[in-house]
């Protein structure tokens, strides 16, 4: 079974500051890794995903994440945040060898960007 731990429930930052949202996972099998963002009253939108290859993954809106297999982490970063980045961020994993699409999500991190 897999599990995902998002280490910070809330992250307040000022506009134009860098940010890191931390995600650790636990799994006995190989996994794919994802970061999704949820804006108020909206569904989830994929920011980026790691399937294989380079451990540094670039996504939309200037976000990037680094897969660290030895530390079982997949932290999300952005060098300079905007007010519009205020949202809920979810880290998720899926079993590479499963037959379906099931994603296991963390509890989320609320990113609050203020001026």
């Amino acid at each position, binding site marked *: 079974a897999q599990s*995902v731990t998002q280490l910070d429930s809330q992250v307040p930052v000022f506009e134009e500051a860098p940010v890191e949202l931390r995600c650790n996972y636990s799994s006995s099998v190989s996994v*794919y890794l994802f970061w*999704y963002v949820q804006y108020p*009253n*909206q*569904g*989830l*939108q*994929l920011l980026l*995903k790691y*399937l294989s290859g380079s451990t540094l993954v670039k996504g939309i809106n200037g976000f990037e994440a680094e897969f660290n297999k030895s530390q079982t982490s997949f932290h999300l970063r952005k060098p300079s945040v905007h007010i519009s980045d205020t949202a809920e961020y*979810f880290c*998720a994993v*899926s*079993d*590479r*060898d*499963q*037959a*379906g*699409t*099931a*994603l*296991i*999500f*963390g*509890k*989320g991190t609320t990113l609050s960007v203020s001026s």
Partner: protein
Amino acid sequence: DAGVTQSPTHLIKTRGQQVTLRCSPKSGHDTVSWYQQALGQGPQFIFQYYEEEERQRGNFPDRFSGHQFPNYSSELNVNALLLGDSALYLCASSPNPGPGYEQYFGPGTRLTVT
């Protein structure tokens, strides 16, 4: 191109009642998954439908059932509603039933059980 649509947007039901939620996938997608998102929590996988069959199921009781139609749209049915079923129900579609493909999420149906 319309994305994933869900109906209704909000729903209020009483304990013991039954509810049906509906989802239309993104154009070109044939796989639909349903998730339950309780307040302050991440989404939890309920089940996945592909080729009109349930292909994968999460840890949810049999009170939760579903259906997929030939046009790939889907329904989620919940019987004998409990207060704990109050949540945002998200539908997601993807172009392939396997892992690793991007899932596109709808805005959800907010179910309140009183």
